[in-house]
């Protein structure tokens, strides 16, 4: 009984932690990009203000039930995914619900939100949304393939599909997966910026080109929910990669350091690059990342 109490409290704590850390990371991102462009930039807590402002909007127009559901769908996806990821290796609160077999489940869960978003954006009837959704799905097909290959390589190599199992293997052998299966790591790393949708891959929400794409008809509280879910999801992705390849984290400070360093990689890449076109992005993902994915699979099987 006590166990359940801890678990519920832990789930709550994890969500808050993911929200806060994700928001601050977003703030740091804006600050860093501003510094790169020789600007002062907004304060690091700017994203909190944005979300608060959006929540305090008096009206939020919607075009139907699907559009109302889409942000909820997104945030559900983010939190559910978060629940199935061990944020810390052990400890009372942050391990959450890991049953064996969760990597495959996670792979499903992580596209679930985007699909909901696609339906919601479709209902708005805005042509920009439709274009954005198509681009998003194309891009997803692009980066999902090397990413899944990397994960499958891990699962095949270590004969387990659970994140906790992989964590255990790493702590027993004493090496991180990024060294013991380097090709999978490279493939995942090269596919990662696509998941974050920062600059070279911001073809979905391209503000000047598509008027922010699928999001274009969402305002007020809907937008705030989407920003929240985006922050949580950024944290989720970072934690997952840290768990899989960087040996996880045994306390929060270690976690923050590892995720922050990992986060800097798409951010800094984004800060100095212009936008890809859709076909260029797909071409990129199906080039080197796919190549390393195939090598990783071969490496894992033989």
């Amino acid at each position, binding site marked *: 009984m006590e166990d359940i109490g801890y678990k519920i409290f832990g789930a709550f704590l994890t969500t808050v932690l993911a929200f806060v850390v994700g928001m601050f990371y977003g703030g740091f991102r*804006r600050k860093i990009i*501003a510094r790169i*462009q*020789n*600007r*002062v*930039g*907004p*304060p690091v807590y*700017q994203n909190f*203000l*944005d979300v*608060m*402002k959006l929540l*305090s*909007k*008096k*009206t*939020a*127009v919607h075009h139907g039930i699907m559009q109302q559901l889409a942000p909820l769908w997104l945030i559900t996806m983010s939190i559910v995914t978060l629940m199935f990821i061990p944020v810390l290796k052990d400890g009372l609160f942050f391990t959450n619900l890991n049953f064996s077999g969760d990597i495959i489940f996670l792979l499903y869960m992580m596209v679930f939100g985007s699909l909901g978003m696609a339906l919601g954006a479709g209902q708005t009837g805005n042509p*920009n949304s439709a274009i954005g959704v198509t681009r998003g799905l194309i891009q997803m097909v692009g980066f999902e393939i090397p990413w899944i290959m990397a994960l499958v390589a891990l699962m095949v190599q270590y004969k387990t599909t659970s994140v906790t199992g992989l964590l255990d293997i790493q702590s027993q052998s004493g090496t991180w997966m990024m060294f013991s299966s380097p090709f999978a790591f490279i493939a995942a790393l090269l596919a990662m910026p696509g998941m974050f949708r920062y600059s070279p891959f911001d073809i979905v929400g391209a*503000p*000047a080109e*598509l*008027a*922010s794409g699928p*999001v*274009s*008809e*969402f*305002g*007020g509280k809907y*937008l705030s929910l989407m920003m929240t879910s985006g922050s949580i999801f950024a944290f989720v992705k970072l934690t997952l990669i840290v768990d899989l390849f960087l040996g996880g984290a045994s306390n929060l400070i270690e976690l923050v350091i590892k995720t922050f360093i990992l986060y800097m990689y798409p951010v800094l890449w984004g800060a100095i690059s212009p936008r890809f076109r859709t076909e260029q992005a797909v071409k990129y993902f199906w080039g080197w990342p796919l190549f390393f994915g195939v090598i990783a699979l071969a490496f894992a099987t033989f």
Partner: protein
Amino acid sequence: MAYDNNSQKIVDYIQNFARKHSLFVLAYGTGCGAIEIPPTMTSRYDAERFGIRGAATPRQADVLLITGYLATKTLKRVIRTYEQMQDPKYVIAFGSCTINGGMYWDSYNTINMLDKYIPVDVYINGCMPRPEAVISGFVKLQDEIQAGRADGWKKYQDNLEEYRANQKKIIKNWTMPDFNW
């Protein structure tokens, strides 16, 4: 929660603080002023310090910038854009053209007083205001928001008929959908 005066005040204060420091700007680049927006936003004058940030669509925006003279044809689009924005929304008008017609005051196709057609919260004078002036206009808007005086959107709701009459006087062939909140 009890809606007594004090707690309402605190809520208002927090809301206004957030609104003030996070202004999503939709620049309607008419006239000459569109050229002043990029320097205001980029590294020289860096409006993002104040939480000012571009928004891509009217649904996400808080502030509508009208940057210069408005032809009757563009007025139609501006009204449509303004009505699509979510409350609370603010309007900043640039330049003498929006104040009293500026150098186009006797033109057959530019309006003279913007505030007869949509409520304007802050006017920035000049022809064209420099980015410093633009930023000072934003700071003024922030002060107004914190003091709770930037209520153009309420005015628009209350006096909708008057504004509509003025708008319809110019836009003869009214084909826009009705404004309903």
